[in-house]
């Protein structure tokens, strides 16, 4: 008795095995995805489902890949992301091993740590907070050159906040935000109003932090 996954695999393997090389591999397996791409939103909500994975297999992206992605998404130079004491690179140096780096030559750490150490999520927080506050400050200070939070300086309304949220998801997670996710970001505006004049920048920095340190951004 084989479960469905195995049957799918065997079918795929047989299909591949029948091919001489990859160039003739089938693309029929992409049907679901193509269909999904042509549905309008209302139809999607009515028909499509999310099922939990039975494998539940993810991999940690690692400090360097994650930080590079963060830098690209925030439009910052890699050197602007985070430096401890303004001097020591957070991801490539100070927290490198904790975030899955290897250093075989002197430390003789040949493989990434098999289990995340306690310090890993804290190091991630430090890097993300540093980068996100930098981006938020830059965008708030020079709206004309803003990268992510273009609408921040002009008392953003609902549409503006959702636009910034959508941009955040596109740049950091490379996808469109779901409406519910935009709802949360918009609602978060009220949560930070007690920061007074700093509220807009704080909303931007914390929104950025929340997405940048989400498991979706850190794992794949």
């Amino acid at each position, binding site marked *: *008795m*084989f*479960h*469905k*996954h*195995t049957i*799918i*695999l*065997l079918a*795929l*393997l047989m299909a*591949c*095995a029948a091919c001489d090389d*990859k*160039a003739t*591999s*089938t*693309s029929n*397996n*992409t049907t*679901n*995805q*193509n*269909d*999904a*791409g042509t549905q309008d939103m209302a139809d*999607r909500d009515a*028909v*499509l*489902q*999310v*099922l*939990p*994975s*039975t*494998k*539940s*297999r*993810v*991999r940690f*992206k690692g400090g360097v*890949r994650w930080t*590079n*992605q963060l830098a*690209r998404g925030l439009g910052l130079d890699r050197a602007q992301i985070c430096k401890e004491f303004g001097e020591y690179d957070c991801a490539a140096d100070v927290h490198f091993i904790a975030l899955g780096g*290897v250093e*075989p*030559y*002197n430390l*003789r750490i*040949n*493989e990434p740590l098999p289990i995340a150490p306690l310090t890993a999520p804290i190091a991630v927080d430090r890097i993300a907070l540093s980068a996100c506050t930098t981006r938020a400050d830059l965008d708030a200070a020079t709206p004309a050159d803003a990268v992510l939070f273009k609408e921040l300086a002009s008392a953003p309304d609902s549409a503006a906040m959702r636009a910034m949220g959508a941009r955040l998801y*596109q*740049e950091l997670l*490379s*996808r469109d935000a779901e409406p519910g996710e935009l709802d949360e970001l918009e609602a978060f505006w009220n949560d930070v109003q007690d920061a007074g004049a700093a509220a807009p920048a704080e909303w931007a920095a914390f929104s950025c932090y929340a997405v940048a340190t989400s498991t979706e951004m850190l794992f*794949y």
Partner: protein
Amino acid sequence: MSIRNTLRLASVMAASLFSIGQAQAKPPAQTAFCVTYPDAPACTPGFVDCSTCHTVAPARNVYGAQLEVMMLPGDARPLSDQDFLTALPEALRAIENDDADGDGYSNLEEFVAGSNASVASDTPAGENACNAIDYRPSGLDVCAFDPVYVFKKIKIDFCGEAPSYAQMKEFGANPTTDLLHTTLDECLKSEYWIAKDGVLWNMASSKIRPIQAIKAGDGAGPIPLADYDDDYNYFVYATSGQHDARELLTGDYFVERNDGETTTYTQWQRNPIQDVNERGYNSAQGVVKPRRAGMLTHRWFLMSNTMFTGIPRTTAAQAYRAYLGFDISKLEGLDDVSGEPKDYDNKGVTRAECAVCHATLDPLTYPFSRYEGIGGGDGDLGENYIPFSYNPSRMARFTGVDGAYVAETPEAGILLGQPVANLKEWAQVASASDPFAQSLVGDFWKLLLGEDPRPAELQQFEYVWRRFMDEHEYRVEPMLHDLVMTEAYGVP
């Protein structure tokens, strides 16, 4: 013991193994289990992994603990092999309907489905969920190969960067497998994959085990003994492009790296004297071309493993572990050779508790004994001594330390049950073996999936490593194209 390390075990395990005591695993159980459950996916190789019943043998997992209770309760331990094998089928059946890991699925259901009966988070797949509804995935598709998911993974795994929003959109508009292969080909050329300190480079570290303080060549340490860059360069070369990965063990050349915007690797040939003239004594390779066996005879490998010892068991054990995936210290890859160990060097390895491993290790070590590492022996190395070289009379130097018998240590040995006359033949047998393909493909599997193949994935794993051997002629890159198309990689 990992899944991929089991194929050589099977039923050849000698009775001597059981002299270790009652606490040890029962290797015949691996095949006996599959007599009872021949259709279980975990039995694809003909026997199951030790982890079916053990965490690390002899410690039992929750399923093993259940089984132990049912195995001739009241009888004195250790059970004889005969009693063990006789009692096993009934004991297995007695706990079929139990749920060892408490995940809601019986042990039998888990075996049939290929999930792990001792890990609660590993359950039979959600077949019903995929079948019971008109399932149309929103985004991640957990019931079929998901090309968008795979596209993202390929970009991260092989190019080292997550795809941008625009790239995801573009691929999502035309998510074909051809485009996945094209993307993979591009990434396999990336610096992230092939440059110094890139993915392939880092994969080699556990095989090379570098130490900067004794490095020679570029970035030499204070005590330059050998240049491990030669080893890294060689590994990346052999596992990239369209090169034959068997040459990790069989090549008779060396490789240099050409840094630049795009890193490239090229072969070179020099004899030891030419290499001394070219690179100086500290870096020069010492083994002449006819005696080279890929990375096994590289200076760094010999220097860092053969330290002062006549019969270099550590060297052989590292080769066995790094290239065939067998860690003898974990009782992996044991394959008794009749009449061994001989104990040529008077180390007491014929004692029962030692012979368990040395009956395998010693005969596979002999072919390494003619290669010089760091010194050792009777003090005077002699006029003909050339470090890190092939020296057919090497053993004679150790009689003062290890006794006269050590001089009779043969160069011929036995690997995986096959006689080999010397290390060149050792390398040929090793590189042509299933364990070599399983080990190398297994390294990439673990790199890309983060773990060894799960029981339910053994068929996929076997498909990949067999095609690596048969269809792809040991070229890693075509193998990777297969790997990313598996369900294990491609279904979230």
